[in-house]
């Protein structure tokens, strides 16, 4: 048996390899083949898709991979995940946690927010992107509706940072068990603490790491 297991792992590793070179078609093919071969679904998910994104994440952080390459890898991983989803035990995906993300009311800057959202997706998180110009009510509603673990707020204007405070307060007031994180160029750690957010990150990889941490506590 160990040999077969070894072979299977090798095949699963191929999935990881295909993700790393962002070959979406091959990822889908390989995942389908593994399912047909009755490989354990968890193994395909963890050793194939999630591990691959960890590698991709590391390569991105070290500057080896460029953003579009990292995003394409994330897309490839998502395609594989879609194939896998019907076979996952209920809640297995949701267990990783859902993130509701958006740029706050009055603010239309979304390049950074999009990047954070895409990288979160790439890390296997379920992301609900509300877009830009989002007020407290919409954040609260989406957090409840999607049973979110984290609400992520982005702002690029000093004039819209106070809105973050309003949203964080509204979420607390709504009494939902969800963590809040904030970010964006003018946002600082001190500001995040001051408004009672649960976390802050200066960049997208940091936001992913932070979210994972918050979701596992």
């Amino acid at each position, binding site marked *: 048996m160990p040999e077969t297991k070894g072979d299977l792992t090798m095949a699963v590793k191929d999935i990881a390899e295909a993700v790393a070179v962002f070959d979406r078609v091959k990822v889908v093919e390989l995942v389908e083949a593994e399912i047909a071969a009755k490989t354990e679904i968890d193994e395909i998910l963890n050793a194939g898709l999630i591990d691959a994104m960890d590698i991709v994440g590391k390569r991105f952080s070290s500057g080896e991979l460029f953003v579009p390459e990292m995003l394409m890898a994330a897309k490839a991983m998502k395609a594989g995940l879609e194939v896998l989803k019907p076979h996952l035990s209920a809640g297995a995906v949701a267990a990783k946690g859902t993130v509701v993300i958006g740029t706050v009311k009055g603010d239309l800057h979304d390049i950074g927010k999009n990047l954070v959202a895409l990288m979160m997706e790439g890390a296997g998180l379920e992301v609900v992107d509300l877009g830009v110009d989002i007020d407290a009510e919409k954040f609260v509603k989406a957090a409840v509706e999607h049973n979110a673990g984290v609400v992520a707020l982005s702002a690029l204007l000093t004039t819209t940072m106070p809105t973050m405070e309003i949203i964080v307060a509204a979420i607390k007031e709504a009494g939902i068990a969800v963590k809040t994180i904030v970010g964006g160029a*003018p946002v600082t750690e001190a500001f995040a603490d001051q408004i009672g957010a649960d976390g802050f990150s200066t960049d997208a990889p940091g936001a992913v790491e932070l979210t994972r941490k918050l979701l596992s506590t």
Partner: protein
Amino acid sequence: MNRAITNFDQKMLGSIHNYSLELLNDTGIRFPNENAREIFREHGFRTDGEMVFFKEKDIRMALNTVPSSFTIKARNPAKDIQIGGDNYMMAPGYGPPFIIEPSGEKRNALLDDVHKFCKLVQTSQYLDFNSSIIVQPTEVPQETAHLDILLATLLMTDKPIMGSSSSGIAAKDSLKLAELVWGNTDEPVMISLVDSLSPLQYAAEMVDSLMVFAEAGQPVIVHSSCSLGSTGPITIAGSLVISNATTLAGICLAQLINPGTPIVYGLGGSPTEMKTGGYVNASPEDAKHTAIVTALGRYYNIPCRSQGALTESFCLDYQAGMESAMMLTTAALSGANLSLHACGTYGSMLGMSYEKFIADEDLCGAIKKLMQPVEFTDDAFSMDMIKELGTSGNYLMEMHTLKRCRSEFFMPELSIRTIHNKWLEMEPRDITERAAGILAKRFAEYEKPEIDPDIEKHLVQYVNTRKGL
């Protein structure tokens, strides 16, 4: 000649224009603002949901009514500025919410910083007008911060101001304050920046402010810019078409509201840092946009805007100097009519620095000197003197030299021009510390410009009332 920044012939500019028309007609521009769409519809434009579609003749008509030059009045008439033609006007940083200290530390900008920078603008030999967000003061209520800045620029300087475009309300506040100073706003007394939202759309609040300024006939810089590779194609050509189409749509709206509204045409484009997704705006690609925007400005016969002395650096190092000089020199030499961010900005426009402001003034001065035409008068040829001195001359002893010795050459304030051992002995030698010395002098020599006490009272009253004080 086929240098990269001069190879814009009419055919190439025409193709940017034609592709822009194609986008305006086929894809349209999003105006999430019912009032604006109503105006378009009244003029027979096709709309679909929030999208507005433009025909070639609409754009042509709009371009026909844009003035090729105009004057913005200053509180001190000697400081009025002329926008267009050969003129090149400079304003300091726009929008940074942080101050970068000489230590490299970053802190939130405060209203006190706005005041200090106003002193520097007023005492600047080279800056021609104010910025409406020289820094964003973070400790004051944000919904009225624009009033604090407007009041400061009006009271502490007598140079032309920028209006606040952050919302329709802010635009109206700008006009109200100007009315208190000038009695009316019949002539241009400010200029404001309206940014579109790439790709191919405007934010509702920006449109509101564009409409307020256009109704009042006050000049607007209509600016579009893609982050190459994220909000637009990675290629300059593709992004240019998006930005040009979007800017033309904004110009069109202003001209429908009030034909003849003075416009400054603006487009930019900055690379997305492909390793991080960050925004880079002191790059050869940015500089190329500057060259192209000026060529397009001439193509449309509209004054044009460029970025200023931008850098990605956070201190007065080689990178800051190199990038700032590349950006501002390109703007000046390719014919920009005005630059924001001419002084003081660091790190992608997010930080403002006092010391960089002083260093950039040297750059502005050098560039203004570089742009001046060489004097070819009889006195400048000085033929009699040359013949008289022949081969034996010592021109240092001549009256001609004496008369001009204080004015002929550009004299930097901060840059050094000395010999090595003098430099070694210099105290302080570090450029940032030397800039601090100049700053202290500038703050000391600042005098508040005269203003009618009644006007001052009314301005303060207006701002206080609006702030609920």
